[in-house]
Structure formats: structure tokens, C-alpha cells
């Protein structure tokens, strides 16, 4: 056992906001270490959902009644909240989607299908999630463009020299993950953006993993697009964000046609609505986006820096504990990473570990983490991944380490 190390950071107060942390799994207190897949939700988020449906459920933007006004105001308040969360210049640069995956698909489709020419090059990295590989493969194939991949070393660190050599006048787009979902390794996106812009290439930052841990300022970063998901920042599922520079978003054609995204429709011609509505066809996920605001407030009330410091202390504590286990190899064991510890153990299949840990009330993720090319590059079938959030504790890591040792003993 170890006392909380962060002065003023009261993990018990935070835990009390999360009803799910009271539940038992297999007769034991739940230890939730699958935060990189999705974070649990504080009570404010859960209450915002029920409050919306109980008090002002209405379709937004066009209704001329009180409920529609209230729902529209709450929905748009989330857009402002997200704008400030990532330092965007104006709220219309924030487009709401289903999730990170849809945000990437929107850009790949709307930009790629109108701007890519035969022979053009798109650059991604070996660390990408399938969601930042497949949409680019699809559009590259359709447009005759080429996908190039920045290599990594055995620890998952990008080969920046190779990236610099890869950039040329044919490079049109760089789509890069900020923090690897499988390993936690943080990429030097600032440098990548600066270098890519020298060749007039646009840059999309996949912030699905980083948005909850790292301070983001899109204007300072100067990224052209940035994408992430609400459910990984303690918000509801089905809430995705696409940030894009206003001039770029204005230039792009709509992604889907329908209601909400139009200005005027005749059978001869339709004119499109202004930003952000041009990209938000149909009735959006009103309730979940309204409930995303208290999630952002939760993070900002505690302070991202304070949460990050707590998570970083957990990460270092867990890393130290795991490194003492015989035959255990931490994958992506670098200093600069988010609170993800991904590992393999000699002669033990990750799936066996996950089953035995679950029997001890511990939720971790195992497998290829939707990053099969990365697993292939590292020469492994998958890893076991423990990822920590604001509400996790050092005691939980102690119990996890004990449970892990017990599982290994059972399997060896």
C-alpha cells in the first residue's frame, strides 16, 4: 500500500462520483483498468442524460418551442465547451460525429475524394489504430494515391529521420496518432506538423487516447484536423469530435446529405448549410452530446494537469511493480507515454491472463488492440494492456500485481 502522492488530489472524492466503481465482479471490488477502451462515467454525466429525457427532450435547431430552445442551447453549450477544451478559435470548427472513427472517415472521404490525385502520397505511422489505416487505404485506392508508413523502433518510437525522408512534394496528407492506443507511446506531433507543413501537407492528429490525458491546444499545435471520442473522456458513447480549421472545413464538400445540413433544397439544386451544420446531417445524438459537457467540466474542474500527474504516478508505480515479474516485457517502455502499460509474458497467452484476471475482478484488455500491423511489427500476437484513469489507485495496482502473479503461477 502506498499513500496518494499528489497533494490536494483526493482520489476518494473522485471515486465517489462514479457509481460503477461500487460494483462487485466475481465477488470482488471491481478494478477497472480498461480506460483506454472507454472511461467510466461520473454521476453528473449519467444525471444529465436522464435530466434531458425527463425534462426537455426535443429535436434541436429548428423547433420554435421551449423544449427545442432548451435542448438546442444545451447541445450548443457542449460545442463551446469542446471548443475551449482543445483551444479552437471558434465553435463552428467543432463538428460532432459518432466517434473518432467517423471523424477520420469524414476527412478521408470529404477531403480525399476531392483533393487526392493519382501519385499523391498520404503518410501514416506503424502505430496507428485500424481506424486511422483503413479509411486512408480506401480513399488511396479509389484515387490512385499511395499510403506510406513511418517505421518505429522496437519500443514503438517513431523513426523521425525516416519521416523526414518520406516527405516530398507529393505528400498531401499526414494522419498521425498522438498517443498509441496499444502502447501508450506519445508521438512528437508538434514536430510532425511543422515538418509536414513545409511541404504544404495537411495534418490530422488522432487524439483518441491523448485528449483525456494531455493538454491540447489546436491553435498552438497548428494541426489542420484533430479527432477524438467523448466516451474516452468520461462522456457518453456515440459522441465523436472533429476539429478542423475553419477555412479547410468551409472548402470541403458535405460528407452526408439529408436534413439539418441544407440551406435550401429544390429538385434542381441544393445549397448547403453553414458550418458546423454542413457536416451534421440528420438528427444528431442530442442526449449524449448534452451529457458530454459535464464530462468535460469534470476534467476541467479537477484540472487535466492534476489528473495527468496522478495517472503518471500510477503508471510509474505499475511499471516498477511489473518490471520485477520474471519473463514480463513491457512493450513501449519509454518515458514519454500516457497512462497505458502494455506487456507480454514469456510463454503465456494474453487471453489466458485476461480470463484469470477477470475471475479476480480485474478488467484489462488483451489482444491486438485493433493495431494488427503494429503487433506484426513487434513480432507478437497481442499484449495485455492496463490503462489508468483519474479514479484509479495505488492499492488497485498492488492488487493487480498480486493477481497477475497468481495467474502466472496457475499458467506456468
Amino acid at each position, binding site marked *: 500500500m502506498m499513500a496518494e502522492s499528489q497533494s490536494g488530489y483526493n482520489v476518494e472524492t473522485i471515486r465517489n462520483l462514479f457509481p460503477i466503481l461500487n460494483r462487485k465482479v*466475481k465477488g470482488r471490488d471491481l478494478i477497472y483498468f480498461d480506460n483506454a477502451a472507454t472511461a467510466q462515467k461520473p454521476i453528473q454525466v449519467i444525471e444529465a442524460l436522464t435530466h434531458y429525457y425527463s425534462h426537455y427532450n426535443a429535436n434541436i435547431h429548428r423547433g420554435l418551442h421551449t423544449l427545442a430552445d432548451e435542448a438546442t442551447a444545451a447541445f450548443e453549450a457542449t460545442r463551446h465547451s469542446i471548443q475551449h477544451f482543445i483551444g479552437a478559435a471558434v465553435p463552428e470548427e467543432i463538428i460532432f460525429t459518432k466517434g473518432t472513427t467517423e471523424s477520420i472517415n469524414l476527412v478521408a472521404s470529404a477531403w480525399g475524394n476531392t483533393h487526392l490525385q493519382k501519385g499523391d502520397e498520404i503518410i501514416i505511422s506503424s502505430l496507428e489504430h485500424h481506424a486511422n489505416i483503413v479509411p486512408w487505404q480506401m480513399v488511396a485506392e479509389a484515387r490512385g494515391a499511395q499510403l506510406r508508413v513511418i517505421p518505429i523502433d522496437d519500443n514503438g518510437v517513431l523513426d523521425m529521420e525516416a519521416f523526414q525522408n518520406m516527405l516530398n512534394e507529393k505528400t498531401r496528407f499526414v494522419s498521425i496518432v498522438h498517443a498509441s492506443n496499444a502502447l501508450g507511446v506519445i508521438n512528437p506531433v508538434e514536430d510532425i506538423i511543422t515538418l509536414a507543413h513545409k511541404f504544404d501537407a495537411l495534418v490530422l492528429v488522432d487524439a483518441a487516447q491523448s485528449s483525456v490525458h494531455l493538454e491540447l491546444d489546436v491553435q498552438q499545435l497548428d494541426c489542420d484536423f484533430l479527432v477524438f471520442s467523448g466516451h474516452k473522456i468520461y462522456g457518453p458513447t456515440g459522441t465523436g469530435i472533429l476539429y478542423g480549421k475553419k477555412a479547410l472545413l468551409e472548402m470541403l464538400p458535405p460528407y452526408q446529405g439529408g436534413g439539418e445540413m441544407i440551406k435550401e433544397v429544390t429538385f434542381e439544386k441544393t445549397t448547403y448549410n453553414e458550418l458546423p451544420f454542413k457536416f451534421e446531417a440528420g438528427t444528431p445524438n442530442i442526449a449524449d452530446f448534452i451529457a458530454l459537457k459535464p464530462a468535460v467540466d469534470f476534467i476541467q474542474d479537477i484540472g487535466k494537469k492534476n489528473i495527468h500527474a496522478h495517472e503518471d504516478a500510477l503508471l510509474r508505480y505499475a511499471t516498477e511493480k511489473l518490471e520485477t515479474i520474471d519473463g514480463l516485457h513491457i512493450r513501449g517502455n519509454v518515458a514519454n507515454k500516457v497512462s497505458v502499460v502494455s506487456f507480454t509474458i514469456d510463454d*503465456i*497467452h*494474453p*487471453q*489466458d491472463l485476461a*480470463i*484469470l484476471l*477477470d*475471475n479476480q475482478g480485474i478488467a484489462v484488455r*488483451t*489482444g491486438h488492440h485493433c493495431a494488427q500491423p503494429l503487433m506484426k511489427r513487434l513480432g507478437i*500476437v*497481442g499484449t495485455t494492456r492496463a490503462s489508468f484513469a483519474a479514479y484509479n489507485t495505488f492499492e488497485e495496482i498492488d492488487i493487480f500485481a498480486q493477481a497477475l502473479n*497468481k495467474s502466472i503461477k*496457475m*499458467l506456468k
Partner: protein
Amino acid sequence: MQETRSIAAIEQELTEDFAMFETWEEKYEYLIDLGRKLPMLDASFKTDDYKIKGCQSSVWIHSYHKDGLVYFEGDSDAMIVKGLVSLMIQVLSGQKPADIVQAPLSVIENTGLSSHLAQTRSNGLRAMIKQMKLDASVYGASSPQ
């Protein structure tokens, strides 16, 4: 030749074996041990042709037909799943094709192992059973009794 015990009788016996263990640890240790004791599958059968792809682990099943009965051999790269392979082989190997196809197979649910082990698609158990039944139905069709 030893008389073939019915699928239901073997399942009953295995269920009783598991019932002797009180804790989840003992049940899993027994399952893992069953996996360890599973005779090695010849490398020539550990190919994609014999592979049943689960989400996370791989299972290989090889079957053959002899004297009107179907025999199974198998392997997995994960220990617990290998235990499940061993269990299913104990239950289904050496049975008549029609009996295999028709077996309701309740043993995994009755062992008291965690319920997700019996349900989850990721361990490929369902796909494994489906493949074993499919093999049996092919043998059954090729040699009607």
C-alpha cells in the same frame, strides 16, 4: 473393444469432476491441466486448413473417421482454450457421427467455470463445436449407417 460411453455419460462424469472443486482457482487449474495433458497435435495439422479463428486465440482441430466413429485431435495457443479443446475432445471423440451432430452439449455450462467462458465468441468455443459437428455430419453423410 471397450464399449463406447454415451456423450451424455461422459459429460455427466466431467461435470462431477468439476463439482469436486470448490474454488474457481481449482476449477481453472484442472482445466489448464487438461490442456497440458492433451496429446500433441501433429505439426502437419497446425495449418490454416485446420485452424478455427477465434478473436484472440487460435484453435486447430483435426478429425478422422474410423470404423463408423469420428475421432478428434486438437490444439490451441492459449492454455485455457486448450483445456476447453481437451474437454470437447473427451466428450466427442470416438462417437458416432449422428450422436455428435445431435449432442446438446451442456458440459461447459455445467462445470461452474465463469459463464463468459461458455458464451464469449472470442475464445472460439462456439466455432470449435460448430466445426466438430460439421466434420461429423460430413462423415455421417459419406457413410450412412
